[in-house]
């Protein structure tokens, strides 16, 4: 009897372990299918730093830690889901009162960005009654930003042609913006009248990654930092006080970790590069002039992160502003960028967008759900390229789109 039961137990245990162990852990998705991971060549210390930044990026802020009092979302990764592009439900709204050429960002009423959420016991912001224009912005992917940050201004200027002297119909121009209070110019920057070339943001209005991080912490999450100590508050309440959490709510090292994280996220990986259709699609992309703005290749300058120095990368962007025509004109000028001007968005990683966005949502506000719609909405400087696309055979169109999906 005793032996019999021992045998039963052992048998069951072995059977169970055998079944379970065969596939005990789910497999990892292929490297090329995920928007995560570090650039090649980092030191062990840098890898560790990256992980600290990763945690900061995923950190969920609560009221007890200074969230708000008014805010858009409580975490970076709520909008930049899985480091990829965002979802229409997390767009940010910016507003203004525009009268002819005069733009009032309603700074004394809580402008320019709307914080439609609030912590318990505080009133959320609503659009001031004067608002007559507002824009919605979908969060972009944040992969490979370190390479873009390590570009020399000269590399960006090389593609600028604001007067279209070469007559290709494309007149990209750099956006020169005033630097933030914490900006320290490096060798890569070329100043004009104290202004520097912006390379981040949909209107190229941020010079450095850090500018966007400090802005996002405050305007998106309501978190003050060593670089911006003033908390948000609801102007409607007439009480010029934020939450009751001591400022800064995030330290300089927290901000630096976030910056380091984004500088060291690898470039989005490519898939099916050598597929015949994909290669044919890339040719079409170049032939019909998409590449006039979506420039494929750049090389970085020297960087304090050795792995980012003198690296060739393929963002498919020129980081310049272009007039995109009436369909994409959101009537909302920002800084020196007109309301119809947008920075060419990098196309790398666009093939993986769908797997992080819970669908496909393209263009600055996520209005387009297919590549065909995106191209159909390309106007202004890109109008001739749109026409060239529409004139393609169905097979060529399919190849072009297959190429985009391989990015």
């Amino acid at each position, binding site marked *: *009897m*005793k032996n019999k*039961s*021992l045998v*039963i*137990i052992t048998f*069951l*245990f072995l059977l*169970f*372990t055998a*079944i*379970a*162990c065969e*596939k*005990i*852990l*789910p*497999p*990892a*998705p292929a490297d090329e299918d995920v928007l995560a991971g570090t650039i090649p060549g980092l030191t062990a210390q840098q890898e560790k730093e990256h992980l600290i930044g990763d945690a900061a990026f995923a950190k*969920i802020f*609560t*009221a007890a830690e200074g*969230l708000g009092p008014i805010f858009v*979302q*409580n*975490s970076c990764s*709520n909008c930049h*889901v*899985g480091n990829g592009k965002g*979802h*229409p*439900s997390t*767009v940010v709204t910016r507003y203004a009162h525009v009268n002819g050429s005069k733009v009032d960002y309603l700074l004394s009423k809580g402008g320019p960005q709307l914080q*439609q*959420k*609030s*912590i*318990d*016991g505080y*009133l*959320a912001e609503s659009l001031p009654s004067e608002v007559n224009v507002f824009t919605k912005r979908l969060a972009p992917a944040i992969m490979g930003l370190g390479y873009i940050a390590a570009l020399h201004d000269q590399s960006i200027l090389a593609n600028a042609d604001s007067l279209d002297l070469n007559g290709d119909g494309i007149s990209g121009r750099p956006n020169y913006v005033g630097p933030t209070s914490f900006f320290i110019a490096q060798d890569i920057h070329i100043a004009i009248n104290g202004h520097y070339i912006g390379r981040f943001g949909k209107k190229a209005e941020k010079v450095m990654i850090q500018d966007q991080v400090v802005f996002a912490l405050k305007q998106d999450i309501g978190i003050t930092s060593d670089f911006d100590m003033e908390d948000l508050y609801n102007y409607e309440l007439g009480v010029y006080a934020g939450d009751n959490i001591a400022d800064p709510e995030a330290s300089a090292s927290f901000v630096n970790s976030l910056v380091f994280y984004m500088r060291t996220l690898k470039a989005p990986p490519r898939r099916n590069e050598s597929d015949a259709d994909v290669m044919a699609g890339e040719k079409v992309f170049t032939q019909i002039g998409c590449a006039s703005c979506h420039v494929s290749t750049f090389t970085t300058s020297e960087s304090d992160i050795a792995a980012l120095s003198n690296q060739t990368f393929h963002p498919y962007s020129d980081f310049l502003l272009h007039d995109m025509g009436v369909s994409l004109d959101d009537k909302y000028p920002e800084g020196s960028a007109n309301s119809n001007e947008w920075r060419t968005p990098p196309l790398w990683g666009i093939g993986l967008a769908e*797997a*992080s*966005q*819970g*669908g496909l*949502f393209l263009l600055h506000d996520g209005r387009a759900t297919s590549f065909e719609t995106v191209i159909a909405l390309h106007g202004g400087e890109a109008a001739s390229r749109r026409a060239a696309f529409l004139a393609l055979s169905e097979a060529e169109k399919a190849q072009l789109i297959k190429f985009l999906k391989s990015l």
Partner: protein
Amino acid sequence: MRYLLLSIILFFPALMKAQDSTLIKRVPQDTSRLIMNSDVMYNRPFLIIGKSPIAIGGYLEANTQYMGTDGVTDGFSFQFRRFTLFFSSTISKRIKFLSELEFEEGTKEINLEFAAMDLELHPFLNFRGGVIMNPIGAFNQNHDGPRWDFIDRPLSATTILPSTLSNVGFGVHGKYFAHNLSLAYELYLTNGFDANIIDNTDNRTSLAAGKSNPEKFEESNSGLPMTTGKVALKHRKYGEIGLSAMLGVYNKWKLDGVVIDKQRSVSAYAFDFSTTIANQTTITGEIAVVEVDLPSGSAPQYGAQQWGCFVDLVQPLYKGSVLNFEKSKINACFRFEYADYNVGTFTETSGAIGDDILTIVPGFSFRPSGQTVLRLNYRYHWQHDLLLNPPALTSGLQFGFSTYF
């Protein structure tokens, strides 16, 4: 306080050793009546020390696991889940007192789960007051580790309903017997949840996040009581079903007498059942729904509605002597569970909102005695993020035990 508790724990093994001496006696359990979920608290293995009027009991739970998500694993871990002590005393024939203290993950969290007095006016009308268990769902009332064949508590009972949930309050309960049937009811007013249910690091609506307010023993965040009620019906042959509801307000709608927001409601509903088929297979399950009145802007990150369910199947495979444990049992068990933390669609895209998890847990349990269980579980999760991207896969093996002492 902490040291006092620690010394009790250290002292305890000594008591356990002495268990078969005449100093410590097991309190015989009343098995003549139909035991319902609402009675389990008093129907635990208790020990009495000498002539002390206090009976003492408790259980502990520990396990090891090897789990991984999408190919990434943190390796092996050993987890000391919880150690719970209960003390009960019969003050007079119709006045009883019971308390339950829980230590989670070592001494990281010490919770007074229960500390209440019961005064019997009539079997159908008892008064209960103190720190009481809110009778929402059956798991909350009947959660002792050794009673379950699975290492993890059910998700719908911990992440939709916040087991274990107890609050300061009072109310009435009672039971009515007729032939093979018994009917039980409970109705309590207690302190309620706070706004952490929609402001927390889980980043989703979570009643569990709103229950841990350190001031909950002193005040209700909203200044209003929360009502919890349950009715349950048990048939000696067919099993037990229960219906419960919990209704309250969670936000600070009034500050120093000034109304600053509308009263925002939080409500939970649960249906539970348990039955034994052919005197053998037990099926236990629960369905829970939570509804929260959200301030504008909280959706869609935080859901206005959540629901979850679990079904446990336990099939005895063998009863008899194993390794000289005369009355041991070996069971095969299977759990299916699902939780949707955010029911609804995105207004912007009309697409469905994700944030859900589906789990299956096959396993075996070995019960060398009625009070101890060894468990081997295999878990597999499919978890969607808010945007309904392809699910993250988690799986792994767990082995552990739980025992009353």
